[in-house]
């Protein structure tokens, strides 16, 4: 007949929880810092002199398992020099509704032109708005995400994230 006292003990446990502070993190008010290597929204990077790093080689598009990157390259001319290389990406689009944030594109890129940032608040009301064009990707993201202190983790930050 240990059933009855054990049952009553259970009631005590649930009652005790009411007076504890809930552990829920209230998301829009409190944003939990993401892991430093967290793979979020993409960014296209520039050199210090302002030229784009992307040379339009389409290796990222080839590496993409979701097939969500579209690159159309064009030749640099002396009076229209966009990138440091011979060619540049005339069109660079990422369909964010298909992207699985695997990070293969940044691994594939020979010039560290595309990197994955830490931003994850990228929902939109319209599917068309999720197709990010080159100027969106070149701009810094509007919403900033807090990032945890890298010293808290023992995994090194990949060099292409540090130097981009």
């Amino acid at each position, binding site marked *: 007949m240990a059933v009855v006292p054990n*049952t009553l003990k259970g009631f005590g446990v*649930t009652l005790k*929880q009411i007076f504890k502070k*809930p552990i829920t993190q209230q998301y829009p008010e409190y944003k939990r810092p993401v892991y430093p290597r967290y793979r979020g929204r993409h960014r296209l990077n520039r050199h210090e002199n302002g030229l784009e790093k992307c040379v339009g080689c389409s290796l990222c598009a080839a590496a993409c398992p979701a097939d969500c990157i579209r690159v159309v390259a064009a030749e640099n001319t002396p009076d229209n020099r966009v990138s440091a290389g011979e060619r540049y990406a005339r069109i660079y689009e990422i369909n964010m509704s298909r992207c699985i944030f695997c990070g293969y594109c940044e691994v594939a890129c020979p010039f560290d032109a595309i990197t994955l940032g830490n931003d994850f608040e990228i929902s939109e009301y319209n599917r068309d708005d999720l197709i990010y064009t080159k100027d969106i990707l070149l701009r810094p993201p509007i919403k900033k995400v807090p990032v945890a202190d890298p010293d808290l983790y023992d995994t090194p930050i990949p060099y292409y994230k540090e130097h981009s």
Partner: protein
Amino acid sequence: MKEAWWITLPKAFVVINVVMLFFAFTTWLERKLLGRMQLRFGPNRAGPKGLLVPIADLLKLIRKEAFAPIAAREPLYIVAPIVSMFTALAAFSVLPWGAGWTVAGHYIRGSVVDVPISLILIFALGSIGIYGFIVGGWASESKYSLLGSMRTCAQLVSYEVSLALSVLGVVLMGQSLDLAQIVDKQQATLWFFIPQCVGLAVFLIGGTAETSRAPFDLPEADTELVAGYHTEYSGMRWGLFQAAEYINMLTLSGLCVTLFFDGYHFPWVHSLDMLGPLWFVLKLFALVSVFIWLRATQPRLRYDQLMRFGWKVLLPVATANALVTAFLVVLVK
């Protein structure tokens, strides 16, 4: 004392709406309490402290498409949730909210209608309410709904026996089937939860099963099955079933308060009896909180455990309680 019909009608209207409001508030209270018991906040976005969540729920359910299977037996499919809701609300008409008041020479009764066998009426309405569940599952023309409604039916019928027997002790001690008279008797002698503690325990357990709430929520075992009899229901028809379930819980808590905790009376201080509805509602929600607490604590029973417990433990205990009470009542006389 007789009550004029033009007092009874608005009173019925007020009671129905108050009960609906309580139902909405109960869903909020349940989410909030369950949340806090699981170290969560519960609803806290819609309105202050999430108080507008029931309204948002209502709007959502009303605007949702009321989907019906093409093979459903149309009239019965639609009538079933209405029957459940109607009986759930109707049972509240006989619960006394106060001792009755005389305002400007007109007498206002504490309950909506005066029925000398109000206790039996409540149980009768509860039994009719089961038809809503059975017919709803059958009329959906889906084997899973049918199985679900059979499961519900078996559970409710099994526990109804114990529930009815558990109040027999109160009836014997109160010597009436009229809820108002049972309350008066408690006021004159002793709150019945002391002499009838066994009856109260059986009533609470049977009542939990009868309103199919956790740990007896096998009719709708959300974590194991999709749902029971209301698998094929959506929108506000589903909402009516859900509302009926919650209002049944309110009715049962109200009945428990009336039968065991002296209904609308405030303990010791008789001058506060004019505020009867307030005490009634406070006691009611204290009891509703106990039901929610029970849900947060106990895991769901297996079906064979449910049946074994109902027939082999609860029914003999209820019967023994009724017999012993009858014997003692005769002995004291």
